[in-house]
């Protein structure tokens, strides 16, 4: 019996957690009517998009044994950059490409500094957290950047209650999740990320170019963060340099709740996506229960601790 419990924890821990929070919010009288409806899940999915896309990049980084604290600032910077390009009349697709490129550039800087200067990712990205946030405010002159309407604004909308179609952002997140999972599981690049995170010395000894690999990982993750910035812009419909403060912690929490280990070498895209959903469901449910936001924060904080504790129980089996 105990073994069955452990296997369930090991294989589907995050998934069970997700079912659990959904069931919990379906029961109370306050939420019963609306919570389990298609429209509510459309909202939940849409609310998950930004954290989910960030978590894709963050999973690559955490599995490789690193961390990136600069995500929230990167999202703010890219969304300001995107808004300014839209002000100048750029078309949606070039703006998208530019924003992803800006995100990738920040990642490239992070990766180069971490691998080249041989410094810990925590310190470097703590630094770029400040640099990117400050740059965003500087570029935006400390104000929000407004632009005339753009098709980008429609990519995250759930405004039309009669339309069953999910917004573009949800599809993009879903598609990228599948691609990233395949990348991590089925390619040499993915396996090298696991090797790097599991034991960097072994990776080097086995002829993996660890410096180049690190730069590639942070750059690719940065591209994801740039894309998250695009959907942030789409949701807000203006460039705001003060947006997404502390979002990196939500993103890291999703990856950790999803079963990744901060010491590297362990983690899955599916887990991280479920982790992101758990957080979104908790927020959505709490709002419908009419709980104040500070209460949501407390709950999410506790969920992170419980998730990691359960993860340790699971690890204990292998020790």
């Amino acid at each position, binding site marked *: 019996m105990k073994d069955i419990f452990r296997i369930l924890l090991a294989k589907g821990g995050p998934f069970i957690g997700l079912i659990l929070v959904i069931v919990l919010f379906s029961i109370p009288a306050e939420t019963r009517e609306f919570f389990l409806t298609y429209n509510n899940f459309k909202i939940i999915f849409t609310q998950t998009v930004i954290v989910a896309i960030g978590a894709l990049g963050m999973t690559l980084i955490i599995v490789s044994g690193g961390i990136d604290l600069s995500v929230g600032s990167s999202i703010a910077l890219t969304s300001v950059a995107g808004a300014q390009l839209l002000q100048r009349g750029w078309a949606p697709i070039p703006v998208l490409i530019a924003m992803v490129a800006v995100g990738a550039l920040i990642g490239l800087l992070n990766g180069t500094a971490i691998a080249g200067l041989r410094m810990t990712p925590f310190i470097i990205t703590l630094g770029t957290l400040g640099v990117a946030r400050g740059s965003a405010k500087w570029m935006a002159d400390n104000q929000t950047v407004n632009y005339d309407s753009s098709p980008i604004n429609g990519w995250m909308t759930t405004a039309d209650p009669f339309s069953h179609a999910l917004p573009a952002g949800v599809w993009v997140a879903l598609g990228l999740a599948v691609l990233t999972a395949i990348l991590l599981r*089925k390619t040499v690049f993915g396996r090298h990320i696991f090797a790097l995170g599991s034991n960097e010395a072994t*990776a080097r*000894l*086995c002829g993996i170019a660890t410096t180049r690999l690190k730069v590639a990982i942070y750059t690719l993750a940065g591209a994801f963060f740039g894309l998250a910035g695009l959907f942030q812009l789409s949701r807000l419909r203006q460039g705001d340099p003060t947006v997404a403060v502390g979002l990196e912690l939500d993103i890291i929490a999703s990856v950790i709740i999803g079963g990744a280990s901060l010491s590297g070498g362990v983690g899955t895209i599916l887990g991280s996506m479920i982790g992101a959903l758990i957080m979104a469901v908790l927020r959505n449910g709490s709002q419908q229960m009419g709980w104040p936001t500070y209460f949501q924060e407390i709950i999410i904080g506790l969920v992170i601790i419980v998730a990691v504790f359960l993860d340790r129980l699971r690890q204990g089996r292998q020790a």
Partner: protein
Amino acid sequence: MSDVRLRLTAIQKSFGATRALKSVSLEIAPGEVHAIIGENGAGKSTLMKILSGAYGADAGTMNLSGVPYLPENPHDARLKGVAMIYQELNLALHLSAQENILLGAESARAGWIDRKTSRERAQAALAQLGHEGLDLDRLAGDFSIAEQQIIEIARALLISPQVLIMDEPTSSLTQADTEKLFATIARLRARGVSIIYISHFLEECRLIADRYTVLKDGETVGSGEMAGASLDHIVTLMTGREVKDLYPRTAHPMGAVVLEVKAVASKPRLRRATLQLRAGEVFGLGGLIGAGRTDLLRAIFGLDDLAAGEVCILGAPTRAVGPKNRWGQGVGFLSENRKEEGLMLNQTITDNLTLTKLGEFGRMGWINGGRQQAVAQRWVGELRVKCRDAGQLIGELSGGNQQKVALARLLEHPARIFLLDEPTRGIDVGSKAHIYQLVSELAAAGKAVVVVSSYLPELLGMCDTIGVMCRGELTAVRPRAEWSETEIMRAATGSAG
């Protein structure tokens, strides 16, 4: 026997379905050094964990000086008089020697450390060991491994233990330090401390122990006086079969030179080394720990940058250096440090075994997982690696089996020049014999091998040529026939002239 310090009777312990200890009995007199001998997985560590209070036994009784002994945890065991020195030392490297010795048992008044009493107690403990000269104010991390071990033993002596358990205490000591440790053990024995001594080095057990007990598959299979026992007898007990020829040698001709190392130096230790390696040759590197043997292998493999000299891999398509290129040139490196450098413990056997050539299991960066798995499974069978299957996490295997997988990585790659750093460290006799055989087969197949070993019988047993390193220099290179254990030690300590 009336005078018994510690008596274990029919100790049993299971983990789930695995019966780690089926029935272990043991008797130790005061002032006796008792060797516990057994292959990896025989149950030694489990037994020691029960003795030191980390686990509780499922059945059986333990008596210490005539009263039932039931430790609740390692701290309780210590208070009751059973202390343990682990193979991996447990020191706070950023604290001083004195702080480490008194850790958890500080002399204090109302929470303030009493400096004078602390110093006296730490000095008293060191005096018992005959190491009064140790600087108590130095940071533990600044001491050598041997000195760190003394600090740890001093900590154990603080509470006057009746029984001291030492797990593989010499595994990272040099010959000279081992002798010093033996002197320390003799002192403790003279003071009436009973010592349980665990080691893979049988010769060592024979030197230091009064009696021995052999464990096999969780059972006591033999015990007796060390003085009257032959090593062959003990090895037969351990393995349950006769090990006839530990160092098999197949006749093999030597071919062309495949590796030339010309006056190589690297920072911080390697000062100068020159050697030539031929196909079919097993080249042994002897010397003390810290003499630069590992540094030489790392320099050859391109893990460390060269400060001077040149490494030529002959018959290779490129002259580029660095680990990635070395693998491409057919050079493979086995690290002495399995856990920290050699293997990815939380990944599978398959991934560990194929990490150097993942790209070849598929096209355009994709991995054909089935093919990769099949290759690993074949090696698992060929090298008789004990595991569920090649998908098992390597951290779950015993040291000997981990080492076989690490070696299989070189075989599969395939390498033609093998750089093996302490390939038999910390593994059981059965796996050792297997590795000696593999090396012999490699040489017969025309591969070239450089092997570093601190274990002299092994060096003399398996190598064609032996070079000894001393203080960063490779001084003497001669055919094996011209070496003896004494001469290697002389060259290693720089007393050969």
